[in-house]
């Protein structure tokens, strides 16, 4: 069974540009989560999508946005990039209408570098 996949592996942008990160969940999973792992800050919850809808959002500015497609894959968009957006962005997926006990399975991440 294929795991969560993310693309690209690495992404280099300059300040002010936009970045688009992609995630494909495990087959059968409908929930997708996005996290930011910045150096020294641990994992911070960004967004949660399920069945195409945004279910919850972490404490991030509106320039962090995303969407979930009918096939349950997801995109994370970061507009007006700032230097401090440089981080590893992790996507995770879990089963349909993820209950509190469901396990989130993570992808390998996209390393975003903002110059």
């Amino acid at each position: 069974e294929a795991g969560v996949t993310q693309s690209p592996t690495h992404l280099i942008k300059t300040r002010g540009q936009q970045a688009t990160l992609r995630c494909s969940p495990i087959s059968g999973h409908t929930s997708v989560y996005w996290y930011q792992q910045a150096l020294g800050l641990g994992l911070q919850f960004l967004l949660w999508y399920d069945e195409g809808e945004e279910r919850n959002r972490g404490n991030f500015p509106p320039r962090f946005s995303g969407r979930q497609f009918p096939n349950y894959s997801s995109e994370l968009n970061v507009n007006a990039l700032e230097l401090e957006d440089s981080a590893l962005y992790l996507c995770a997926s879990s089963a349909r209408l993820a209950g509190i006990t469901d396990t989130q399975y993570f992808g390998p991440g996209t390393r975003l570098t903002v110059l």
Partner: protein
Amino acid sequence: AQSVAQPEDQVNVAEGNPLTVKCTYSVSGNPYLFWYVQYPNRGLQFLLKYITGDNLVKGSYGFEAEFNKSQTSFHLKKPSALVSDSALYFCAVRDKANNNDMRFGAGTRLTVKP
């Protein structure tokens, strides 16, 4: 507020010795606790979780964790450490009172020396 703390940034053990990575939590309701491991330049891999029932949870790669409600702890343990266990370990907690958000600890870097 829901939170999880990993009091040690770094844990060093010798190969073959038992290891413990500590985690304490604070939630308003019933805690749902998870352990993940992260190898260099990789995503997080699920190790184990506590939902309910037996306080001793067994997981992948020989790891286990003990849920202690009175001490609000969920320490990760392994009887005999391997060099290949060297990695970054994260404890996480979910709580219905916080819309099922998963909150992660800051992580503990485990180094197992030969």
